[in-house]
């Protein structure tokens, strides 16, 4: 009886999935001509707003939009742009060499603030749900794991710090950097049998890092009249000390993510104490 019901369920689910699949594939394979469709194969980036992020001429584009009104939408690529050269160009908007970073932290920094909040609230919920979780012991770590954990821990942390400090220059940034540090904490949990959770410490670090992010935003609001404005000089593109608050925010994000995820892993492991 139960099996029949399962079969019927599976059948209807399969039917729904097939219908949705036809729906999606039909949408994706719509022929060109009848209105806009997904920009496939060689997407014309000059039809998208990101052309200005790439060329770093958003302020010019704002002026162009204000002057030419709706004709802007047809002539995005006519917006003036300056020549960008690694290690030479100064004050190229945010000044970060990694375009993804400049979008994540600068052009759309507000999303990142929300994203950090999502992580914050979910780790908070995890702590609430699991605070009386009993510690589960894993198989006794072998000598190699123990030694390896002790030996590798500082290097992994250092690598994580490197990743988020260089977030505005190289691939990486606050989120992967923080996660790498959290994986060092994971290594300690697996490698050290008598690992003690340090939740109060992570809480304080997390709070201060979050405060830095939101506080930098508010400083921008009160000095330059807009939340999360880059109020520091953005420097030469490609240098370590450049891109103003972008680098600072990414460092804060890295520290915050590291603290949050480490505490999340500790609480997942159990034995969390306040």
């Amino acid at each position, binding site marked *: 009886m139960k099996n029949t019901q399962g079969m019927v369920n599976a059948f209807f689910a399969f039917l729904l999935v097939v219908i949705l699949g036809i*729906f999606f594939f039909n949408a994706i394979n719509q022929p060109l001509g009848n209105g806009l469709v997904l920009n496939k194969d060689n997407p014309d980036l000059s039809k*998208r707003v990101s052309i200005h992020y790439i060329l770093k001429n958003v302020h010019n584009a704002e002026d162009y939009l204000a002057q030419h009104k709706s004709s802007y939408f047809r002539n995005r690529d006519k917006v003036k742009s300056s020549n960008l050269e690694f290690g030479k160009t100064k004050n190229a908007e945010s000044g970060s060499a990694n375009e993804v970073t400049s979008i994540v932290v600068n052009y*759309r920094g507000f999303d990142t603030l929300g994203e950090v909040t999502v992580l914050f609230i979910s780790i908070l*919920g995890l702590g609430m749900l699991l605070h009386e979780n009993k510690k589960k012991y894993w198989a006794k770590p072998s000598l190699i794991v123990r030694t390896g954990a002790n030996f590798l821990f500082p290097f992994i942390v250092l690598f994580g710090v490197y990743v988020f400090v260089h977030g505005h220059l190289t691939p990486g940034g606050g989120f992967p950097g923080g996660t790498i540090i959290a994986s060092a904490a994971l290594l300690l949990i697996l490698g050290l049998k008598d690992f003690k959770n340090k939740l109060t410490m992570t809480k304080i670090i997390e709070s201060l890092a979050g405060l830095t992010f*939101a506080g930098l935003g508010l400083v921008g609001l009160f000095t330059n009249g807009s*939340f999360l404005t880059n109020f520091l000089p953005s420097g030469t593109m490609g240098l370590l000390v450049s891109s103003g608050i972008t680098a600072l925010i990414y460092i804060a994000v890295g520290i915050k993510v590291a603290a949050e995820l480490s505490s999340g892993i500790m609480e997942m492991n159990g034995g969390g104490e306040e």
Partner: protein
Amino acid sequence: MKSNYAVLLIAIPLLVAFLQPLFSLINKRLTKWVTFLTIGFNFIYSLKLLNYVMANGAQIAIIGNWKPPFGINLYLSPFSMLFATIIYFVALIVLLVYLIDKPTEVDDRMSIATLLMVMASGAITLTGDIFNMFVFVEILSISTVILISFNNKGISFKGAFRYIVLASLGSSMLLLAIGFIYGSLGTLNLASIAYRFNLLNPVYASVIVFLFMAGIMVEAELFPFNAWVPEAYKGSKSYLNALLSGVVGTTGIYVLFRMFITIFGSGQNHIQVIGSVNFNAVIIVIGVLTTLIGEFSALSQKDIKKILAFSSMAQMGIIAVTIGVANMNSINAGIFHLINHAFSKSLLFIVAFPIINIVGSANIDKWEGLGRKNIFLAIAFAIGSFGLIGIPFFNGFWSKMMIVESVVSAGGWMYLVIGTILLSALVETFYFFRIIFKLFVDKKIESTYSVHIFIYLAILILSIIVIYIGIKPSFLATYIHKAAIDLVDKSHYISTVLGVIK
């Protein structure tokens, strides 16, 4: 420049939320009052902004000094500010009642989750960027899940799990819709999407709208994404129930209004047919189904929490119908009914809260004789339910009248819809009067529970609002009228944000 400060409505609660763990290290009791004060600040500030935009028209607040459509912006208009204000007001009252009544129960984690939930709801109403909306929807659903599971019962974990599964299913769909939008229109800004939406291939547009609708229906408690409603309401604390219907549900419906009428709709004709699908009909069918399922499920329940949960589901269905009918009258009526529902339902939940404490049970059979024990609560309950049913001279009467009127003027097969609305009112009358008659049965209740004066005050404020809107519906008329105009006027939205005129 001044309007840029509106971002404080989001930034201050976030800053406070990040600081709360530090406060809780200093003093555990500090956090809840900080939360309360922050929401109070939000309410006062949003009231101020509401008056400002009512007088001066819609404004935008830009973030990061990047003007739209390049950066993220907040859109402050009569419609968005009105709902932000109502959300903050409801949250403030509910939180006050809860803090007074159960001071020991509120811990630091709960106050952070409440703060972020209210912040996210406000931010969803204000934001002018679709991906930003997605991020805040995520914050809203995660903090709601935490609050539901706070009760530490099996059923609350089940409700929370069901909610989060549906919510992440919905958010995947929402993200897919955002992907489709960005891939074709090359923008994430709502005004820019609105400006270019009718250039889309029709099949393609219908896929986007379908995915978006599926994504937001979890919050709006609409069928078939409302499977979480009964367990989540039953499993969570009473006060959270008020927030679930007054804040989360209101936000979900707000997004449907804004997206379907301003952004995806085509100016004065509103949505009508997008692509190959008549989404008006789809929304009406969904609304009617939700209403019928909600009302008939409420009829068979004994538990007051479940009754109110199903009733709020049904009201959301009725409001969804007004989105589908989509003429000026129905939009007016829908906004009015959403406001009325937020007030009446919060009143009912807040009244149910001390009643449950007095009687010691959420089962309505045990409520007999409450009127003799505490006449004030019984009358307040009656006022709330009259407002919800739409008894003449209570707030729901006017909005339901307006809904029926607007549906009649739409004509055609809409007569079926009128039948549904009237039937739902009938069913509501039946189950609410069943409770009210029970309240005034002559029977003695033994109880030592005494209701705090502040709870009376909160109930009094909400009752007065319910009655005052009933007697003088013109009190809100200017606000609602401006909100409806703002909602319908697509070209105004576009020209305010982008500076181009469609």
